[in-house]
């Protein structure tokens, strides 16, 4: 009894409130996305639980049970069993390759009755725990190569297995741990290189190779010119030229990779980003329709259940990956702003919570949660408004899908559980 009192008192209700708002809003939008004005199905009608919104209601119900279980389990469990949990999900990722069912080209689902689970979704949480566990070991230092390597291995194994089951989108999420690592002391060079690579990548899509070469030459000349006289040594100039040369090589490599490594549909998804009119009928179609749906919402939206673009199937995957389109269409800019606001509020709140942790385990885990949610937010909303390539990952708490809802709820509530017990956790270093 005493412990439960503590939980309800110490739980961060702000986060819980945001969570509940997200889940409820998500469900309302799923209902709207599949709503058919000719045959509206109400909650009490037959067949309701065969629809996406009906099934999602079941998922929400079971999620509540899961959350209670997480809150009841001793907070030390997660710390202690972090690696076993990680190991378990690695095993599941392997197992799904053997016994899994294929859904839409990806071999990553366990089917239990009419419900499906995707272990890849849960592996994010497991990796997060493992990272927290590893980094909370005394004397780990991310500026050391050995630790960097180990961390890299922990992060890299799940996405490699996930890629094997052809679920590229989820695999990319693991790149988000760079945020966590940066916060935990990874030299700033790594995210800097990462950002530089992404920037160059985008530039190489927009501009011709030779234009970038000229650009690089001009920029390096400017840098040398701007350097104070005493810094202008041969060594430094050579270093700058070396960097510029590497960038040039990278650009060439990108062009080569786009044309030779990426599959056609992946290549097209990237190209659509730069040229919205490219391939309007196929690859461009989704992006265009998503933008039409959101753009037609206007300031206040068309009203709940009044949208035409999403529910009439113009937007693909309207209840899962493109759920934000329903928000944008029916609730307009005000609705989109609210949803973006909810996510920003959640992430900033989580950063605040993470930073007040005494144990490094909890803090690292907290930043891991922020990293994952941020990446989903960045990519999912970004792709519906044409700022990101189409990568099939869900919007946390909003999108239809049990695996997604379960895994994000578990991810979040483990952290809330840890946070609730922060005063009981001793800082180990």
């Amino acid at each position, binding site marked *: 009894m005493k412990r439960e009192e503590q939980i309800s008192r110490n739980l961060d209700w702000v986060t819980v409130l945001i969570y509940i708002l997200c889940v409820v809003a998500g469900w309302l939008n799923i209902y709207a996305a599949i709503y058919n004005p000719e045959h509206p199905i109400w909650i009490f009608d037959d067949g309701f639980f065969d629809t996406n919104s009906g099934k999602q209601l079941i998922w929400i119900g079971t999620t509540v049970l899961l959350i209670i279980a997480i809150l009841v389990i001793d907070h030390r469990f997660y710390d202690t069993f972090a690696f076993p949990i990680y190991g378990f999900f690695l095993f599941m990722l392997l197992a799904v390759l053997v016994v899994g069912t294929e859904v839409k080209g990806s071999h990553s689902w366990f089917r239990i009755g009419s419900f499906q689970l995707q272990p890849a979704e849960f592996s994010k949480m497991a990796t997060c725990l493992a990272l927290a566990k590893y980094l909370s070991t005394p004397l780990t230092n991310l500026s050391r190569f050995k630790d960097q390597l180990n961390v890299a291995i922990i992060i890299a194994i799940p996405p490699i297995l996930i890629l094997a089951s052809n679920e590229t989108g989820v695999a990319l999420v693991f790149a988000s741990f760079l945020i966590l690592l940066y*916060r935990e002391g990874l030299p700033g060079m790594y995210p800097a290189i990462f950002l530089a690579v992404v920037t160059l990548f985008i530039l190489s899509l927009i501009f011709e190779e030779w234009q970038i070469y000229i650009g690089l030459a001009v920029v390096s000349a400017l840098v040398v010119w701007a350097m104070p006289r005493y810094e202008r040594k041969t060594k430094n100039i050579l270093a700058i030229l070396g960097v510029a040369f590497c960038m040039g090589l990278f650009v060439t490599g990108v062009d080569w990779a786009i044309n030779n490594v990426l599959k056609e549909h992946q290549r097209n998804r990237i190209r659509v980003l730069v040229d919205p009119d490219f391939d309007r009928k196929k690859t461009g179609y989704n992006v265009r329709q998503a933008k*039409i749906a959101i*753009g*037609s919402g*206007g300031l206040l939206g068309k009203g709940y259940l009044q949208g*035409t*673009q999403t529910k*009439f199937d113009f937007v693909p995957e309207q209840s899962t990956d493109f759920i934000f389109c329903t928000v944008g269409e029916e609730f307009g800019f005000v609705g989109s702003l609210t949803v973006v606001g909810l996510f920003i509020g959640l992430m900033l709140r989580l950063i605040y919570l993470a*930073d007040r942790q005494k144990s490094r385990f909890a803090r690292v885990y907290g930043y891991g949660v922020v990293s994952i949610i941020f990446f989903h937010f960045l990519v999912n909303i970004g792709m519906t408004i044409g700022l990101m390539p189409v990568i099939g990952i869900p919007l946390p708490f909003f999108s239809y899908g049990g695996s997604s809802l379960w895994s994000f709820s578990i991810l979040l509530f483990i952290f809330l559980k840890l946070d609730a017990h922060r005063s009981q956790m001793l800082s180990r270093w």
Partner: protein
Amino acid sequence: MDEIRKRFIQGFIILIAILYIGRLFYLQVIDETYKLDAQNNAIRKIVQVPFRGLIYDRNKKLIVYNTPVYDLYITPKKAHVQDTLKFCRLFDITRSEFDSLTHLARIYSPVRPSLFLRQLSKEEYARVQDAMVDYPGFSFQISSLRTYQSKGMANALGYVGEISPERLLKEQEKGNEYYRQGDYVGVTGLERFYEDELRGQRGEKYVMVNSRGVEKGAFKNGEFDREPVAGKNLISSVDIALQDYADSLMQHKVGSVVAIEPSSGEILAMVSAPTYDPSKLSGRTFSKYFQTLNLDPLHPLINRPPSAYYRPGSTFKLIQALIGLQLGVISPSTGFGHAGVPMKCHCGGTSSSIQLGIKNSCNPYFYNVFKRIIYNNKEQNLFKKSAVGLQRWNDMASKFGIGQELGIDLPNETKGKLPSVEYYDKVYKGPLRWKFSNIYSVGIGEGEIVINPLKMANVAAIIANRGWYVRPHLVKGINEIGNIDNKYKEHISAGIDRRHFEPVIEGMVGAVNAGTVAAEARLSDIQICGKTGTSQNKHGQDHAIFIAFAPRENPKIAIAVFIENAGFGGTHSAPIASLCIEKYLKGKVERKAMETRWMNKSYLANVLSAKSASAKPNKEVKATAEKDSTIEDYQLRNLKEELFKLDQVNKPKAPAFKIPMQPEAVLPKNQKITSKKIH
């Protein structure tokens, strides 16, 4: 350092959020194009075609209406035809037609219904209906087909067809945004002239559709929907019984009959021969039938009464007499001899009064009348005299509608030609270079004057009314009688005093009773007042003209009969006019033998030989005549093109035309002799 990195991460997240919010603001609030795109995506306008207005004749008999027909639609995804052969037999289509139709439908959309067969009749529909249970995915939609009760009025009524791209463009340039591609519009005739009244107002229904085009219910509960408004009905002035009768008389002939009620200007009958079956031009048979008509050397698609024009010939002498009397240059008892007149006459001697001049259609008499009209002014110089005289004459003849548009409620009315001072100045390359001796042939309705049969009938109506007319019109009411433009009600003066008509009418009576008109054209109990005319043309036989009105007092009908290449008007046109007058005034025709004979009479051989003659230059014809004939042909050709801008497929050789070899089909040579003799 941790604090800085934390700030960095927070900053990055907030930066992305601001970027996204900015983008969303742009997409949702600033850029309006997506709203339109969304509408084009998901809201479909369904056009509901209104019922086209009906057309009645003057006795309230229905002459144009809409027959329900059934269009067969196929929804490829739902359609399963087990026994294709049986299906094809049922609908009387071939296997390859079936395959191509289903293929086209599938390309269009597998889930949306597309048109499979159009316009199945009620009978066909009844026949296949039972069998349709075996063919899911096929459905019928009712639509309507324009149906014409009477074949005779085809050209006056016109027909309805899909709007041509050119017309669509024209309407849009005029600011008329009503029409869309694929709309049915009146193409010619009344259907075209009264298009705005007949078509009604189309209804619009907005439905929402999903990405595959399947309907998903009304948009905003039908807030923007509009019910179709049916077109207005027309009450035509035509007496369909007379129309059909005149039409049957005009079988095997090329030409026109126009009958007008003089007191109201209402057209009682308007025949353009040869005619065609208008019902065949609305429906599945359209393109095939249209091709046939379009290639027909006799141009059945031209509405001759208001459009084709010819020299009026001797009928024009009536106007000359009236102008002469009005100007006071002759009196009813003025007589002229034949001496010194460069014209032949067949009347044999002297016409001592206007009455006799008309009765005998004396060419020298009217040569002299015209000479007086032209020369009777104060100018001394003959050239100046001619110019002043012609101008005065032109003004007066214009009042009869010659060289003007009468304003009939039909498209493509031709003005015809009334030579003016400017005209001759142009022909003779400068003013004062011509005088009466250059233009005298106009005095007897030959030379440079051309008018259409409608105007000829109108001239008869003016004389019947003793000096005025109402614009001839085919519609006496829209929805109810009298509900028409006021311009079809006003009396227009021909500028001739009433007292001048009696001598002229007296001459017309004489012409019928003892003059140029064939004896069989007389009626024992009704006095017909008429005037014959014979219009020269370069292609062979003269055109036979007869204009008349009856009875003499309180006339009920004015009529013009025009038969191409038939010969002398009194012999070939007058009997037909006489039969029509009898039919209209008595309701039936008692002269059955005469009726049958005229119905069977054929002048097609003359017309066709004239056609073939026109292919070669004919040097024997007078220069003026040749010039005008060219114009006439050119006009006809032009008109044809204007009327029917259909894709000119490589024109095959004109199909061999079957000439019904009637005993009456006189050889051209004989005919020529007869006509010249009596004239």
